[in-house]
């Protein structure tokens, strides 16, 4: 009798086991509500600010006992992969980071913040953000991120190397010619006992530096309607030429591929054009590195063109707790939070924090010339607002620039080849998203 039921019972057990497995795998691991508190998720890059963010969240939760914040810590190199995996699984975190350069790519996951920003304009102090930063927060006039950090391209320089070369420090009215003159005096060839010094760095492998020169020479990447690449214009070519000739003609930068690793930190490079605020902490922790910043030297056409890039918080468009997440975003970008971040080494996105920092008589460490940082903002420009900017620049344009740097051809040919390749790309995908 018992054996009659054994086989069906085994089948039922097998099916039940499989069903349990599927249920377990598919269950909602981030419930909307947990212990009566609304759960919001935030994917965060692991950084030296981790303890700061954890303290901020703890304080936020104390002030909002009905909200629980779950932080998903991810190494920087895995951030996009983790984020996209979660998004593909329909579990986009309620809040995530996005640089303005990534907005076009992450737009499908973002909420349009414009109604919230307009509603709470006074509370968030919209006017407190620098106009350049407000511009970078938007796409087509709509707000998508609330900024927390900003980077602006600057001229970084090593004060000790300038002193040793008997040179005055860079001035706000410097031009490319001044950069070259100083660079020549700062450059010291390597010997058997001395690794030598290059007058100026030359950033290879991405657009960070050469795009500055292209813009300062009066050029740009895309035509105003974004439908054509104009890197073959005379102005753009002039910018590429200066980028190339820093090494090939003036000898103030290392030849292609020979840039010293961490040259500015290791004091093998006296000046750096562009740079990034994220390195300030490292610079200040490097023994003996006495550094400062100045406005970018002006190009033949304009001083404008140094890049401004923001990083801020975005709100998922599938969030179940829109208002709660918005509250957290407002909390993390309030002036006190921004000031705390700036005190650890950074640039203020808020005017009030910037002014307080500039006035602070107790402020120590580099950069001393903080006024130049905020002055440079006036001349800074966001990267072109093309939806495929990153892909076009890294996949299509940069290989041609690399070949120019390695001496395969000159700047005219590089501009021509890059423009032709980009225009082919644009023609293929004109008016629509690439496949």
């Amino acid at each position, binding site marked *: 009798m018992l054996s009659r039921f054994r*086989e069906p019972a*085994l*089948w039922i057990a*097998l099916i039940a086991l*499989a069903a349990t497995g599927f249920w377990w795998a598919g269950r909602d691991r981030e419930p909307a509500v947990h212990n009566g508190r609304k759960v919001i998720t935030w994917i965060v890059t692991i950084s030296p600010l981790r303890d700061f963010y954890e303290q901020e969240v703890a304080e936020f939760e104390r002030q909002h006992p009905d909200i629980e914040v779950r932080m998903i810590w991810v190494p920087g*190199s895995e951030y*996009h*992969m983790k984020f*996209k995996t979660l*998004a*593909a699984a329909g579990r986009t975190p309620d809040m995530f980071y996005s640089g303005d350069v990534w907005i076009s*790519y992450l737009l*499908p*996951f973002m909420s349009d913040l414009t109604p919230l920003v307009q509603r709470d304009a006074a509370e968030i102090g919209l006017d407190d953000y620098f106009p350049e930063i407000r511009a970078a927060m938007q796409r087509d006039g709509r707000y998508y991120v609330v900024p927390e950090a900003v980077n602006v391209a600057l001229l970084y320089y090593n004060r000790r190397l300038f002193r040793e070369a008997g040179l005055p420090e860079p001035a706000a009215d410097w031009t490319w010619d001044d950069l070259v003159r100083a660079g020549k005096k700062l450059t010291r060839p390597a010997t058997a006992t001395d*690794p030598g010094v290059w007058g100026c760095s030359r950033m*290879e*492998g*991405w657009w960070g530096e050469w795009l500055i020169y292209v813009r300062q020479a009066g050029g740009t990447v895309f035509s105003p309607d974004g439908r054509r690449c104009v890197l073959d214009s005379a102005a753009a070519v002039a910018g590429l030429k200066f980028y190339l000739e820093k090494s090939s003609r003036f000898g103030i930068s*290392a*030849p*292609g*591929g*020979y*840039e*010293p*690793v961490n040259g500015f930190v290791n004091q*093998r490079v006296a000046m750096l054009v562009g740079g990034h605020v994220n390195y300030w902490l490292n610079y200040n922790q490097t023994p003996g590195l006495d550094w400062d910043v100045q406005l970018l030297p002006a190009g033949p056409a304009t001083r404008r063109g140094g890049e401004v890039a923001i990083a801020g918080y975005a709100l998922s468009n599938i969030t179940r707790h829109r208002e709660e997440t918005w509250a957290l975003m407002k909390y993390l970008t309030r002036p006190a939070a921004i000031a705390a971040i700036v005190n650890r080494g950074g640039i203020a996105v808020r005017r009030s924090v910037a002014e307080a920092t500039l006035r602070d008589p107790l402020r120590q460490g580099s950069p001393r010339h903080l006024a130049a940082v905020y002055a440079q903002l006036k001349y800074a420009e966001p990267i072109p607002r093309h939806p*495929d900017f*990153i*892909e076009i620049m*890294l*996949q*299509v344009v*940069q*290989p*041609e620039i*690399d*070949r120019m*740097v*390695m001496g*395969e051809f000159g700047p005219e040919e590089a501009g021509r080849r890059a423009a032709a*390749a980009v225009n*082919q*790309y644009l023609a*293929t995908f004109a008016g629509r*998203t*690439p*496949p």
Partner: protein
Amino acid sequence: MKSRRAEQLWFWLFTGPALAGFVLFSLWPMLRSLWLSFCQYDVVSAPHFTGLRNYAYLIFSDPAFWPSIKVTLVFAAVQLPLSLAAALGVALLLNQPVRGRGFWRSVYFLPSILPQAASVAVFVYIFQSDGGLLNRVLALAGFTGPAWLGSPAWALPVVIMISLWGFGYPMVIFLGGLQNIPRELYEAAHIDGAGAWARFRHVTLPLLSPVLFFNVVMGVIGALKVFDVAYAFGAAQGLTPGGPARATLFYGLNLYQQAFTYFHMGLASAMAWLLFAVIMLITWLNFRLSRRWVHYGD
């Protein structure tokens, strides 16, 4: 009859989990990617059927597609023979009756179990143009070393050199094959006056040919799919992935970037299926050609 049904039940009970895993995590994603290869799909929006557009774009318009194929084929053509030769050479040495043989076998296998990223980081230090170990040694001898990592001409050869470091797995397989060759055949050949080269050529190679064939097939597949070393190479230098000038833009890396950097899942799926087709074709060719040189002793 009853016992047969019970046997079936136990069969499904034991194979079920593995089969379910295969269907859910291999077969279904493969079929799904085949469908997606005919779609425009950005992960978030629903897939939009576009027919053969992804394939046409890859073949006729994508500026990175053909360069990535060229890089991958050059890598496979150079790296595979070198790594197999190194693996076979070391296996022959480690098959000799010398003292500490086990120790040396472990030493030569060790690099294969090191994380690829760690190996690449070490090699990147060695090959740095400014201050790297190799160029310092060259400087002592009065030479200026090239920009190994930054030059499009040198970057791929450097990646090939780095990847040669881990020949442990084919070496172990060769070693297993060598130990299965009867000693009497060598003794007979020796008595007949065959020298070392003749014994290798006429005894070792023919009897090792099935093992060699296995290593060739697996090596070709591995070389065409190479990803980790290329990814780590770019990351270790802070370079644009695949740089400089697409010199290290391997097919796998290009596919990864399309999928996980630019959200072009349809395009990436098409690339995956093209790669699958090429690997199938080459493997089929390998099997066809193997009839001419692989001896199974039957």
